[in-house]
């Protein structure tokens, strides 16, 4: 199991980063996809922005971007404000459930 998945199981969102290329490696991997150096693992910024969103039934979901590189699709909790493209969101929870990664975000 990858470091990413081990940490995700604990609710932590870590990302792989190449210290040589000074770039985030996404999707998470053991090696940099540019120079093949071993990556370093670190916590990701959990504040991102909405790239696109829609709704299935009562549930919003969105494609969000973090650190200008990491993109994930997750559930978007909406309480009062409506989602908009470019609006800030926070990654609230992340977990592994039935082999799938589940991400939950809220509008900041």
């Amino acid at each position, binding site marked *: 199991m990858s470091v990413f998945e081990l940490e995700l199981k604990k609710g932590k969102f870590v990302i792989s980063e190449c210290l040589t290329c000074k770039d985030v490696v996404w*999707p998470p991997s053991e090696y940099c996809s540019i120079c093949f150096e071993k990556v370093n693992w670190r916590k990701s910024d959990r504040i991102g922005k909405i790239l696109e969103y829609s*709704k299935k039934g009562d549930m919003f979901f969105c*494609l969000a971007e973090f650190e200008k590189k990491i993109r*994930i*699709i997750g559930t978007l909790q909406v309480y009062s404000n409506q989602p908009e493209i470019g609006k800030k969101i926070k990654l609230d929870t992340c977990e592994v459930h039935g082999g799938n990664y589940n991400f939950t975000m809220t509008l900041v």
Partner: protein
Amino acid sequence: MNEIAIVGYGNTKFSREEIPVESLLLNATKSLFDQNPNLNQKDIDAVLVSTNDNTKYLSAILSELAGIQPKTSHTVESLCNSGTNSVVSAYSYIASGLADVALVVGAERRNSPGQILEWDNSRGEFKHPIFWGTIFTKAHKRKFGTTEEDLATVSAKNHKYAHDNPNAYSNKIYSVEELMNSKILTDDLKVSDCSRPCSGASAVLLVSEKVVKKYSDNPVWIKGIGQKTLSASFTKNQDFSSMSSTREAAKIAFDMSNFDPNDVDVAEIHDAFTVCELMAIEDLGLVSKGDGAKFVKTLYETGDRKINPRGGLIGSGHPLGATGIAQIIETTQQLQGIAGKRQIENAKVGLVHNMSAAATSSTVLLLKS
């Protein structure tokens, strides 16, 4: 370079029936042999199978069932564009001189494991294709003002054209209004916007210029091939209202063939979702960016079959491994002038667009009569 032609084909009907993949492959192969009396099993140098099925060693199994002992046989899997990938592989065997005659057969069962790319965890729990279809649709609506009526028109056109395709999964004609009222899947996608997984198989025979006369006096030549893979992750697409891999593959194919988009008389487009037809015809350069919906509306209203004459994936069904090959067969029949009720008058140049996993990869072929 060695010129390569398509000289034969065979299809099964696309349906919701549960049929063993071996049976599907054999039935399409039998159909091909039935239509090509000059073809003998001993002539075939390569047998390629296109599928996402988990069954092992299918090309050897098909070869044995069909009485063929080829030099080369293997399976090609590349999700939804496995079909055109396998044809490109067959083309390469012939172009290199390793083969003169190659049989390519694609098949899929209704419950194909190729419908969901499990590896792409960046999609979180939203791995079903309807979610990338929704994001593409929302982005296209936002950027170009695409409406639900525009999307329903794509679906209405393709169901209407599929009515004249005897192998199509759907034989129902719907009005735009009926489709606009179909079941809602997400805020941006309805059931009528989606192609449907089904069981089916298609086969084509590719040959070198050296032996072409033995098999056909009406061959169709593969003049351009363009392929591009940008990623496996859907979320790596830079712009969700267009298909970059399609744009790049098209440029390669047009450059190779010396054709340009104005030369294309007929095009088979990978309409996995209604919005994909609009995005693809725009990114292939068949219309300007944002003009796809207007163009499709005119086709629908005038009965012009230039785009997806057999009914596309939406009307015909989408048995993943067979889809690209079925698209090639339709284009071949159009260029041979034998497409019957679906025939486009005087078609000389045809384009096939086949893609995988939310356009993370695309294949574009240009064919000429």
